[in-house]
């Protein structure tokens, strides 16, 4: 990393974060565009390490430059833009989220950035979406906070006559810290426990001599089927790390290498926290034999999730993509609205938002039984165990199965594309699609649709229209075709 950097600004505050494991993140920064001084760094978060990889001066230099050119910013209202730098000369990669906000009555441009060494590029890229989604949401909240704080401060100044101007805008930092630390922890945990790109089938259930050797046949079928129906997004919980990880690896066989790198194995000793946005993650139950999933984070995952308990062999799944996205958006909007309306800092504390409506009835029943049976996974499981384990036969057979799924998904996308003239017309012939593409089993359709959703986002919402139908209603509607 270059030493040709200007000296750091003395005003930059820094938070050092102690992480239990190795941190691939060099630093996180929050910078803003000062109308007089240009880009300025407000805060630095850095992991507490013995070896200083990047000096504060270098971090400041880099962070300042994330706002380079942003004086020309031409963004949609409320947009949070992502900039991504790979700076070989500096040996770093920087991810910057640029947004406009009101601070002290002035509208300005801000940048929240994370800096990683360039050597971590291939480690980071599969996790880009997770990081960006999480930082984006915290920025949404922080922006409201910044906006509200000014009003409150002004009120306080008037009422109390106290001088608090120097604190203005600072309070966004604790909020950002509340998400930057988890992101650092996530990256750290992924560094040590991410699922490898290539999985040895010998470490999975598919290496058993016969189906049902290490887990019940019906359970395995349900788990894989539901896992595929929820876009490859699953949470595996259990008391035995070994057992959990075997299922995690098995499920990861059905993912792409990049998706595997966005999946996490279970920690043997203590459990990780649930992380929103990972594809598959193994979580260890506590001593009481339970694991509490954070509702908010489960809702914020980009795809619906399958919940698999390897202790009791249960498989539950969230509603399909369009419903999940719809619920997620409703939740986000309500959370932001609650933030907007909150009157005290306590109200605005993270993760403790309680909507004050008297008629509040939380719908915790987001996980349902797997109702839709499929023929694709069933046939695969029926057949794969006929091949001798220990050779590459099963891997080849699996690759063929995945190829079939991907090709069917692409055919489905193309079919809908043709039928609707690339979305110009509504899609009305789901029945025909099912017959033409041999997807008459509801589970098969769900699996292929889920796969298609990943490569063509928004397909569910487009096909099923306004997502007010519940799954059951949807099925009823489909039956009428």
């Amino acid at each position, binding site marked *: 990393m270059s030493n040709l950097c200007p000296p750091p600004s003395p005003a930059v505050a820094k938070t050092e974060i102690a992480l239990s494991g190795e941190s691939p993140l060099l630093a996180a920064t929050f910078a803003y565009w000062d109308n007089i001084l240009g880009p300025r760094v407000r805060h630095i978060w850095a992991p507490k390490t013995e070896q200083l990889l990047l000096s504060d001066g270098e971090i400041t230099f880099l962070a300042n430059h994330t706002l380079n050119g942003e004086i020309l910013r031409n963004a949609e209202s409320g947009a949070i833009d992502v900039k991504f730098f790979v700076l*070989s000369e500096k040996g770093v990669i920087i991810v910057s989220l640029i947004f406009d906000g009101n601070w002290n009555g002035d509208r300005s441009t801000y940048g929240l950035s994370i800096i990683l060494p360039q050597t971590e590029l291939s480690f980071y890229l599969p996790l880009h979406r997770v990081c960006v989604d999480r930082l984006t949401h915290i920025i949404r909240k922080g922006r409201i906070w910044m906006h509200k704080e000014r009003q409150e401060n002004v009120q306080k100044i008037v009422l109390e006559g106290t001088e608090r101007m120097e604190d203005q805008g600072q309070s966004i930092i604790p909020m950002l810290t509340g998400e930057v630390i988890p992101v650092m922890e996530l990256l750290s945990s992924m560094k040590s426990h991410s699922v490898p790109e290539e999985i040895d089938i010998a470490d999975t259930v598919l290496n058993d001599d016969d189906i049902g050797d290490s887990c019940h046949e019906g359970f395995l079928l349900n788990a894989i089927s539901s896992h595929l129906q929820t876009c490859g997004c699953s949470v595996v919980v259990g008391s035995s790390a070994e057992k959990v990880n075997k299922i995690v690896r098995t499920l990861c066989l059905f993912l792409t290498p990049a998706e595997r790198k966005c999946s996490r194995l279970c920690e043997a000793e203590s459990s990780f926290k649930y992380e929103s946005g990972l594809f598959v993650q193994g979580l260890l139950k506590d001593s009481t034999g339970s694991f509490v999933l954070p509702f908010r984070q489960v809702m914020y995952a980009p795809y619906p999730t399958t919940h698999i308990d390897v202790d009791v062999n249960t498989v539950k799944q969230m509603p399909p993509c369009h419903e999940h*996205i719809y619920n997620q958006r409703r939740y*986000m909007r309500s959370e932001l609205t609650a933030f907007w309306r909150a009157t005290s800092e306590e109200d605005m504390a993270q993760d403790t938002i309680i909507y004050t409506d008297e008629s509040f009835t939380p719908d915790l029943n987001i996980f349902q039984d797997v109702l839709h049976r499929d023929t694709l996974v069933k046939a695969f499981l029926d057949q794969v165990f006929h*091949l001798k384990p220990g050779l590459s036969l099963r891997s080849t057979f699996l690759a063929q199965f995945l190829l079939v799924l991907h090709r069917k998904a*692409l055919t489905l*996308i193309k079919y809908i594309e043709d039928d609707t003239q690339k979305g110009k017309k509504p899609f009305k012939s789901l029945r025909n699609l099912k017959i033409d593409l041999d997807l008459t089993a509801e589970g098969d359709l769900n699996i292929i649709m889920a796969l298609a959703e990943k490569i063509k986002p928004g397909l569910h919402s487009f096909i099923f229209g306004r997502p007010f139908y519940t799954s059951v209603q949807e099925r009823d509607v489909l039956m009428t075709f």
Partner: protein
Amino acid sequence: MISAPDVVAFTKEEEYEEEPYNEPALPEEYSVPLFPFASQGANPWSKLSGAKFSRDFILISEFSEQVGPQPLLTIPNDTKVFGTFDLNYFSLRIMSVDYQASFVGHPPGSAYPKLNFVEDSKVVLGDSKEGAFAYVHHLTLYDLEARGFVRPFCMAYISADQHKIMQQFQELSAEFSKASECLKTGNRKAFAGELEKKLKDLDYTRTVLHTETEIQKKANDKGFYSSQAIEKANELASVEKSIIEHQDLLKQIRSYPHRKSKGSALCSAETQHAQDQADQVATTSNPDESADADLYTRRPAYTPKLIKAKSTKCFDKKLKTLEELCDTEYFTQTLAQLSHIEHMFRGDLCYLLTSQIDRALLKQQHITNFLFEDFVEVDDRMVEKQESAPPKPSPGRPPSRSLDECPIPQVFVSVGSYKSSVESVPIKMEQELGDEEYKEVEVTELSSFDPQENLDCLDMDMKGSISSGESIEVLGTEKSTSVLSKSDSQASLTVPLSPQVVRSKAVSHRTISEDSIEVLSTCPSEALIPDDFKASYPSAINEEESSYADDSEGAIHFQASISPPELGEAEEGSLENTLSQTDSSCCIGKESDSLRVPLSTPAHTHSDPDGVVSSPPQRYRQKDQGFHVDFAGENASPSRDNSSEGFPAFELDPSRLLASRDVSKTSLDNYSDTTSNMSSIASTSSDRTPSSAHPTGPSSERHKKRAGQNALKFIRQYPFAHPAIYSLLSGRTLVVLGEDEAIVRKLVTALSIFVPNHSRHAKPVKHWVSSPLHITDFQKWKLIGLQRVTSPAGAGTLHTLSRYSRYTSILDLDSKTLRCPLYRGALVPRLADHRTHIKRGSTYYLHVQSVLTQLCSKAFLYTFCHHLHLPAHDRETEELLASRRASFLKLNLGLVNEDMKVVQYLAELLKLHYVQEPPGTGHPTLRFDYVPSFLYKI
């Protein structure tokens, strides 16, 4: 399961959406849209942002020291592509984020300007209002005239899809790095050339100045220097200094650290050369000499000119263009690379992603992907594979082919057993006429057989097969459909590549003459009918079954010559042990093992609900290698004579041949021997146009689209599309007969998507043939477009066709008829449903691809499912094994009726491909399936 504190109420929609009157609503800019994909007419295909450009393009921009950021060129260079998109503004935006702190000048402690070879930086950014997102690749080029000698440039891939850029970041980065490296290499070359010129100018100037100074010195006899002389001397000193500086720069540019040019395949030769040059410079003290030695300078002689020591002001000069900055050749190469990038990343992200996933998954399927994959793509993959190919195996061990670099399973089913399962007869295809040599690599106890005895048998068979009106084919008329529809009889001719024959003594029932096809079909009387022919008669069914058992005892088994020389003798137990071994020797060992056990001939006895049982009319196992395609042999001559004498005139009428089926069949059967011989001779002796192995050429998207579209038309237009497709899938050659070449070609192209390949190197499709078909054509091609010539000259072609018509399917485009076996499966209707609502050819092609991939998967399972091809215990008979296989196909793979044959045929291809060494190099098996055909009309 869910933690309560996280819960925010959302029970009814209105509770979320309704805002209390007394509180200010959340400004929309702070909120998130409720429908990210379904609002305001947005859909997965619409550009969320409404970009002003029509599709992705590449922009090259420069940060000009005179005018600031400016766009230089776009790829494609078409104003329609970027439309009203403001390139100037976007150039300003992307150039303003350059991070390159390329320091050029006089660094502290350095006497001369230093070139800093900065690495490229890559930035992804966007303009959400304009809906434009870009991958920006920043690079710095050198220009002697430029400020600090540097000219910052950037190449940007601009797209409306931000996800596309991030998801393809590494690929984009790799490709743009190649382009950048090419530009920079050219630039270094040009820069070095520029420096050399400058040095020559300076040298010339120095000489001139020196001369002038000397003149002045001589002219000056006053003992002191005039101001003019001092000025000249200063100028000279300045030139001297400039020379040293430029020499240093030249040295720097030539000693460019080539480790940085990694991955530049485009310019690898040049960089190597440049490296040599750098070395040369390092060892040369005289810069002039080094300049002379520089191959860069092999350009037209340069005439030095007098220059001023001080350079011109930057605003007075015209900056070099990008092409001038780089060598033209490199500039052109870069543009080509950028065009390649534009083409590579063009289109919808979902297709890009799927093709990448496809490629990755296909890499893991070397055993099966030759079957239906586009061989152009497969070849590409093979190249990739070869690049990373492991070293050859050690001597003494057969070269093993890896199954995706992983342990390779044994093939548990021998070639022979597959042949028997599809009732095929191997034919030794040798082109040398009259060569009766039998190559016996290994004559085991079971297979020891006297060639002379065999020949005798052949002679006898030939004698008995002169003519017959009792051919099985006759039974296959419309009148007897009800019976024959259940017949499963077929006689197949298998041609191993170079047969190493393992023959058995038990050739009691049948031997194969030089034209076994006719032997199979022409029996003058029941007395002469071999046992296995009796299956044609309902009363002989049971006998047929018993004959199978006999056959299995005395089978003659062929083994392709590509088999490794060692035939393993592994026992059952040891086989289990060797399973973990992965080389092909294990596989062959297994094969040889299976050769030792009676080769399976699954009893293909269909028991239909109505109780009618049909069995193959012949099930002989004497896959005698003695069958030669050498029709010029002794036995052939009389037949030829017969044919020339007694060929009826009506046979020459092809329409009659096809339309009047009964008559034609009789006549065909009567004269099939002779026609065969004639055609064979004609074929082998004539100069046939070499058939193209790649008739389709590069398989483009357009080609796929057209093929899919025409296939879709075919299945909608022809009610008999299913049996036609079944023929192709089951390895029975389909001849498309027609007068109009264009129409025939079109249909052949369309149907070719259903044809399983025999290897990665060629698709067994011949689009257009006008000469008579030869037996080898059926080995090479599984789909043939044949010209119908109405003139008598073309009769030969049709006669040849009629000669083989019982073993091929014939689709007559002119009369819109199809003659082929019955199909009653469930697979083809899924593949080719005439009621399908698929609208486009490309979509149908995708659908076919996915169904065929499923089929491949089944064939793979069947091929490599070990317990299907090994007896469960010593006493398990071949029949039991066969019935186990049949039940597996039915129950586990869900196959019914003829679908089983499709999977069996594909499994056979997989097996053959697997045992070939190297894979896919040999010719496939030639099979003639002898099953009753039916005539379909529209």
